[in-house]
C-alpha cells in the first residue's frame, strides 16, 4: 500500500535552496486504485475487494470511522463518497477509483476550526459514549448540504438511519438543528 501525493504537493515540499539532482528519474506512476480521502490522494494497491472501512482503519489508521456491523447498520461507519453518505463497510475499494471520500477527520475546516455541526455537537453536549457520533456527523453533514437553510425539519432528521445506544437523540437532534441555523 503506497500513499502517493500528487506532483504539485511533492513540489511544494521540496526545500528551497536544495540543489537539483543531476538526473531525475521520474517516479513510476503507481498502480492501484487512486482515490481522494479528506483532500489527499491515495492509491490502494492491496485487495480490491477490501471494504473502505478496513482501508481507513487498518491501513491509514483513520479510526474516527467506527465499525457498526457487516452491513453498516446503525451508521457508525458512515463516510461521504462524492458527497453522498454511505457505510464504509459496504464500499469495496474497487468501487472507489477516482472517488472523493470524506471521513469525520476531514469534516473540520482547513484552518483547524470545527465544522459547524461538530461545534454544535460540542455546544449542546451531544456526546454520550461518543462512539456513534462520527457517523451522525457524517449523515447530518450531507443533510445540511442538501438543505442549507432553512434548517432541516424533524422529518428530515428522522430520515437519518443512525443509532445511538446511549439514547442521546434529544441532544443530537438539537445539535443538527442548531448547526442548520435554527435556535433549537
Amino acid at each position, binding site marked *: 500500500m503506497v500513499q502517493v501525493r500528487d506532483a504539485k504537493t511533492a513540489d511544494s515540499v521540496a526545500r528551497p535552496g536544495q540543489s537539483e539532482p543531476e538526473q531525475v528519474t521520474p517516479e513510476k506512476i503507481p498502480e492501484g486504485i487512486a482515490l481522494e480521502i479528506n483532500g489527499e490522494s491515495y492509491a490502494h494497491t492491496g485487495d480490491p475487494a477490501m471494504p473502505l472501512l478496513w482501508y481507513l482503519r487498518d491501513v491509514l489508521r483513520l*479510526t474516527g470511522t467506527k465499525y457498526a*456491523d457487516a452491513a453498516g447498520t446503525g451508521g457508525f461507519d458512515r463516510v461521504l463518497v462524492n458527497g453522498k453518505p454511505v457505510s464504509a463497510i459496504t464500499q469495496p475499494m474497487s468501487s472507489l477509483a477516482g472517488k472523493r471520500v470524506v471521513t469525520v477527520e476531514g469534516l473540520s475546516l482547513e484552518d483547524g476550526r*470545527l465544522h459547524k455541526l461538530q461545534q454544535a455537537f460540542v455546544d449542546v453536549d451531544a456526546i454520550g*459514549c461518543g462512539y456513534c457520533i462520527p457517523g451522525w456527523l457524517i449523515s447530518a453533514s450531507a443533510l445540511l448540504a442538501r438543505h442549507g437553510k432553512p434548517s432541516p425539519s424533524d422529518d428530515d*432528521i428522522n430520515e437519518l438511519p*443512525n443509532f445511538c*445506544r446511549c*439514547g*442521546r437523540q*434529544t441532544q443530537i437532534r438539537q445539535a443538527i438543528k442548531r448547526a442548520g441555523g435554527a435556535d433549537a
Partner: protein
Amino acid sequence: MKARSTPDNALSRRRFLQVLAGGAGALIVGIPSARAADAANAASAPIPLAWLGDPLFALDAFVRVDADGSVLIGARDPDTGTGVATALPRIIADEMDADWGKVKVVALGLGVSNNNGKPRWTYGRQIGGTGTSIPVAWNELRGVGALARWLLLQAAAAQWKVPASQLRCAAGMVTGPNGKRLDFGSLAKAAAKIKPPAKPVPLKTPDRFTLIGQPAGDVDATDIVTGRTAYVIDHHDADALVAVLVHCPWPDGSLKSIDTEPALKIKGVVKIVQLKPEPGQPPGQTVIAPAVAVVAESTWLALQGRDALKLEWEPGPSASQSSAALEQQGRDLVSDKSQGTDQPPVQPTARVRDEGDVDAAGKQAARRIDATYVQPWLAHACAETMNCSVRLEKNRAVLVVPTQAPQAAWQVVQRLTGLKPEQIEIQVPRVGGGYGRRLQHDFVAEAVLIAKAVNKPVSLFWTREQDVAHDYFTSGCVYDMHAIIGRKRELLAWRQRMASASSLVNRGVPDDQLWRSEISPNQLPAGLIENFRSDWFGQTAAMPRGPMRGMPDVHGAFAAESFIDEIAHQMRENPLDTRQRLLGEPRQIPLVGGGTLDTGRLANVLKLVAERIDWSRWLHTVNGLGMACWHIDGAYVAHAIEVSMTGKELTVVRAVCAADIGRVINPLGLEGQLAGATLAALSTTLHAAITIKKGQVQQQGWKDYTLATMPQLPNKVETIVVADNDRPPTGASLIALPTVAPALANAVFRATAVRVRRLPLMPELLRLR
C-alpha cells in the same frame, strides 16, 4: 455490586494524602488507598501518562499543578458514556479552586503496585457504570482538591509573609491583601515542598462551590467530534496481529470438527487458535464459550480467514433449552398451579420480603386483582463491540481494555500470566458503552490466551454478530401480581411472585442469596403496604447471565407500576390519585440494607411530571397518558409519557422525566443521562428481545436485535431536575431506566385500551389489537 464508601473510611483515606514535588516545579497530590503507602513506592509506580512526553513525573496522583499554571486531574473511573471523566475531575477542581479552562483531564488507567505479591490499588476503587462513581468520589476525592488548595495557599502565605487565613483562592489564582495575586503555576514549586497537615484539611462549604452544580460539557467532546478519540477498538500496536472469533452457538457445546486449511491458505492468515472455557472458573473470568480464533495480519484478512473456516459444532447438554419453555416454566412457578388441586404448593426459592399477614388480609377482601407480566431476555448491545489489545513481554503485560472494572480485568490477566501485580499495565481509554457487559472479562481472557498462542501482540476484535449472540444476558422473567382490595377500596395486601434465572449462579454466591440480582427487597410498593409479600422462584438456564444496567429495578418497575395502573383502572380511579394515596404523607421509611425511602421526594417528582404533561387531561385526551415512579438507593424518578396510535403506528408524542438524585454535580451531564436513559429504555421496551431456541441465541446482530431509529422516538425528552443540594449525590446512570416501560405501557393502555403485559411492547401490542 454496589460498594459504598462510608464517610469514616473516606476520612481515614484523606489522612494519607500524598504530596510529591515533580520536576520543573510541579505540585502533585495523590491519594494512595493503602494505609502504609510511602512516597518512594508511589514515585516508582508505572507512569500511566506516556502521552505527556514528560518522563520526569510518575503521576501516581490525581492532581498535578505545573509551573505554567496548567492543572492535570486524573479521572480514575472508566467513562462508558456516563460522564464521570468530566464529573469526578470537576469535584476535585472545585475543591482546589482550579480554573477549569486550564484543567486537562487524564484517564488514569489501572493503578496497581505490589504489596507483598498482592495488588495494592493506587487510586482506590476503580469502577464505572454502576451508579456509584460519584457518590464514592464525593466522599473520597474532595480531600484531594482541598489539600492541593491548602498547600498552594500556604505557599502564597509564606511568600507574602501573611497568614493564610487572609488569602482567597479562586479560578486558579490566590489573592492576598492589597489585591496581590499569584497564579497556581507560580506557587506550585513552593507548595510541593510544604508538609501536608496531620489532620485532613477542611472541605469547602457548599455555598462556595463554583463548578459543582454548574453545567459542563464532556471533557472529550472535541476529540470525539473530530474522530481523534481512540477507543480500544481504535488502538493498534504496529506489530500486532488481529484476531477475529467464531464462538460455539451453544455455550456448553464443543468443537466437533475443524478444517483450517482453506483459512491458512490465505496469505496473511497466521494462525488458527482454539479456545475453551476453563473449568471451574466463574463466568466473566474465562472464555464465554468454545471458540476458534483466526489470527491474521489485518482485520480484513482475519475476516476472510474466518469465512474460509470449516467448522462443525457439537451441541452440549443445554441444546434443548428455549426461552419459550423457560417462560412457560416461569408462568407455572409463579401461578402456583397447586391451587384447587391436591398438589402441594410450589415453595419459593427465596422469600424476599414478608410483612404483615397477606393470607389473613385475604379474609377481608372485597376484591382481588391479578396480573402476570413477562419480560424477555436482553443483551447489552454496546456500541463498541468487545475487543482487547494485549502485548505480552517477558515480565510484562500491557493491555488496553474497554472495561468498566480494570481491577477485575487485572485479576484475569494475573491468573493467566502469573505476572506480579505491578508487571501488569492496563490502560482504559474512553469506552463505547458498558451497561454492565464490561464488568465481565471473557474477552480479556481470550485476548491473553491468543497472544500467548501466537507469541505476538494481538488486537482482538468481536464482530457485531458475536457481540449480540455471546453475551452475559439478562434472564427473562415472569412476575405474578396479586392485590387484595378492602371494602373502602383500600389496598389491603400485595403479593408478588417472580421467576427468573439468577445471574449470580456459579459466582460464589450462596444459594439462598441468588435472588439479589433478580429482585430488590425495597422495590415499590414495599414499605407502603401493611401486608406485603415478595417471593422469588429460581430457574435454571445454560445461557450466560450477568449484571445489566438498571436491573433488577427495570424488571420490578414494569411489573409493579403497570399493576398499580391496573388497580387504579379496576377501582375507576385517576392513577395519579392511586399513587399519591399509596405514598401517603411525606415520611421516611427504612430500607432493607440501610437508607430510607422519602415518600415526599418521590411524590414530588411524580407531581412534577404530572404538571408538566398536564395530567388533568388524562381521561379526556385522544392520546394516551401514562406515568410511573420509582426509587433506587435514595434517588427518585418519575416519567410521564404521551402516545398516539394510528393504525399500526405507535407514536411517542412526549416523554417527561423528573429526577431527584440529591446534589447535582453536573446538570448538563445529568440531563444527558436522564434523557439518554429514557430513550435507551424506550428503544429496548419497544423492540428488543433475545430469544433462545434449541439452546442457541437466535439474534445475530442488529438485524434482529435492533435499536430504535429517530422516527420511533419522541423528538425530545423533557427533563426536570430537582436540585436537592443539601443531600449528598447519588448515582445518575441507572435512575431514569425503570419507569420508562411502565409509563409507556400505561400510556398505550389509555390510547388503545390494550394492556400490554409482555415485552417487547410493539409485537405484543400488534398481536393483541
